[in-house]
């Protein structure tokens, strides 16, 4: 199985592109500079060698013009330049200003030119380091003059130049990479803004907008993004409003039904069958009414409407009020010996509704509410609602807070299926959290955790 290599990121691509560009450009410049300088230096060296050779050759020729003077004697009296060796060929014999005998090989390339009567310059690798070879015919004395001068200085200069240019190319490449990094930051900055804004939008903050800009390259992006968020917000609000609007329109007819039915339920003149039918209708109508109220509440929560300011209230007071409001005995609230009532800053109506929903959930699915306790921690307060039911399987404890979710394949027909979803959203609105757990000894506990307000 082949695995595709991970694709480089945009930032890495920009940096690499800048670095490679800088490397290519600096390499071209370095190579060009090197060869230009080399050409110049070599040419200069050849001219210097030629000039020196002509001077020395003239001296040798003049000496050899004296009758009876041996070539070896003449060479012995001539001092060649440092690093240079003079060779003279006369009558097929080779004479050298030093003891080496490399003359024939070192000058082989230029010998044909000199033999034809012209001066010549060439390079040879026979020596180490290589050397410039100058050949000058001496027809007056029937001889050929050769001067072989090693180019050690030139080699050193060229090596130093090559090193300097290589270092420059490397530094230029690094600088190119740095420039690429800076450019990538500049290019990617708007993308980072878009990313952060998108994260905020996906987190539910529909007020997020990108700041308007004069940059002609970004105007279209900013405009399109902001329009997209506007459209998204409008769509979400529309969807949320739809359920609320439908529910709202049903309020008056449902009120008429409940009001009229209340007369029938209190009537004593009905046959047993009719009374039973009225009770069934009353039960279903009550469920329908609750579902309607739950849909309206969810619509309010979904539309993010903030109607009530947060209220500073005691946690035990909240539980007491919720028990009284739902007509339940106050002794369900477990006594606290300290008498403390830790303060929480919450949307009071929403939290009261959440607690009432939990009590109702305990009645419908948990075999009845067994107690509520307030547990104070260092930075938060837990409102713990307990029931005596079968508990909630671990795999369902997250899912039961979803809309219309029911635990353990329970048949529908009891609650609206929205109660716990309202609980979760309401508690989150007050910066709290809610979860379900096992109750020691059987049953379930629902814990509403609210941030505690420090008391002065």
């Amino acid at each position, binding site marked *: 199985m082949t695995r595709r290599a991970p694709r480089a990121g945009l930032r890495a691509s920009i940096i690499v592109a800048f670095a490679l560009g800088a490397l290519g450009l600096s390499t071209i410049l370095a190579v060009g500079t090197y060869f230009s300088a080399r050409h110049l230096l070599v040419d200069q060296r050849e001219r210097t060698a030629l000039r020196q050779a002509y001077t020395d050759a003239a001296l040798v020729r003049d000496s050899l013009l004296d009758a009876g003077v041996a070539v070896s004697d003449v060479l012995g009296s001539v001092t060649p330049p440092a690093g240079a060796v003079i060779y003279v060929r006369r009558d097929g014999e080779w004479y050298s200003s030093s003891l080496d005998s490399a003359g024939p090989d070192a000058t082989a390339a230029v010998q044909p030119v000199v033999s034809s009567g012209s001066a010549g310059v060439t390079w040879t690798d026979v020596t180490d380091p290589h050397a410039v070879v100058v050949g000058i015919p001496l027809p007056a004395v029937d001889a050929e003059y050769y001067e072989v001068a090693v180019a050690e200085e030139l080699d050193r200069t060229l090596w130093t130049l090559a090193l300097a240019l290589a270092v420059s190319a490397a530094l230029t490449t690094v600088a190119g990479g740095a420039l690429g990094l800076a450019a990538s930051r500049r290019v990617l900055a708007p993308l980072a803004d878009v990313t952060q804004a998108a994260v905020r939008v996906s987190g539910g903050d529909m007020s997020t907008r990108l700041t308007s800009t004069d940059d002609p390259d970004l105007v279209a992006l900013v405009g399109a993004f902001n329009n997209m968020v506007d459209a998204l917000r409008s769509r979400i609000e529309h969807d949320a409003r739809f359920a609320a609007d439908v529910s709202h329109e049903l309020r008056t007819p449902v009120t008429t039904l409940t009001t009229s039915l209340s007369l029938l339920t209190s009537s004593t003149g009905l046959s047993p069958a009719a009374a039973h039918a009225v009770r069934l209708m009353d039960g279903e109508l009550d469920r329908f009414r609750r579902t309607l109220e739950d849909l309206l509440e969810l619509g309010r929560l979904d539309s993010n409407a903030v*109607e*009530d300011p947060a209220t500073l209230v005691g946690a035990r007071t909240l539980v007491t009020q919720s028990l009284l409001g739902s007509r339940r005995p106050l002794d369900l609230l477990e006594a606290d010996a300290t008498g403390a009532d830790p303060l929480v800053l919450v949307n009071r109506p929403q939290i009261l509704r959440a607690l009432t929903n939990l009590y109702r959930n305990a009645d419908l699915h948990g075999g009845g509410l067994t107690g509520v306790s307030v547990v104070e921690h260092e930075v938060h307060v837990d409102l713990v609602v307990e029931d005596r039911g079968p508990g909630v399987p671990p795999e369902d404890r997250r899912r039961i807070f979803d809309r219309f979710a029911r635990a353990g394949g329970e048949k529908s027909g009891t609650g609206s299926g929205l109660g716990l979803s309202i609980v979760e959203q309401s508690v989150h609105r007050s910066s709290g959290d809610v979860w379900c757990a096992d109750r020691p000894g059987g049953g379930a506990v629902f814990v509403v955790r609210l941030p505690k307000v420090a008391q002065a």
Partner: protein
Amino acid sequence: MECMPTRVLVLEDDHGLRSSLRLVLEDDGYAVVEAADAETALHAVSNSPVDLMLVDLMLGGMDGFSFIQRVRPGTEAPIVVVSARDGAPDVVAALEAGADDYVTKPFDVDELKARLKALLRRPALAQTERTQTDDVVVLDRHNGPLVFDRGAALLTRGQTEIHLTHTEFRLLSAFVDNAGRVLNRSALLEHVWDTGYFGDERIVDVHVRRLRKKLEIEPSSPHTLVTVRGLGYRLDLQ
């Protein structure tokens, strides 16, 4: 002597709901006056006073807010808004206009009946409390003086009589009974409205504001009915 039934005006433009409310209220012993629009209701009330009004807000022609504003100066009868609108601005606007209570559709019929009884019980309750508490309390001896005669359900400043609605009477009675002590909104909701604990606490704020206009020389800087920030309200006898 046969007791006259309590007359209730039902101002509701939905025929079905209006009829069902009539059936339920008549079954409970009330005499019901129906009106499908505000103009008819104003005419009916001016012809023959009623003891209680149930008012819908969304009406054709004049809306419920305007009706309450028009009818409130001429009557002390409790006004209960029955509306499908449950937004905070609607609740506050209705109370500011002069409503005493606010019930959202769909409501529980028994709860509605209980709230109507609580609103109507107040004057009678004042009479029973007459022997147990001070009948006459001087609220502000420096300005007027301002005197609350609980037995006569009368507030006077000097020689001027200041009318109190039933809710204002009940609210002032609660403050007089607890003069010098802070009453929080929840306690006031329980004592004055008998609505349990799910009542909107803004009902209290709006009615305290209205009561201040009658008690204070400068309602914007109250001295008699003061706000205790974060806790509630306190009546300070001057």
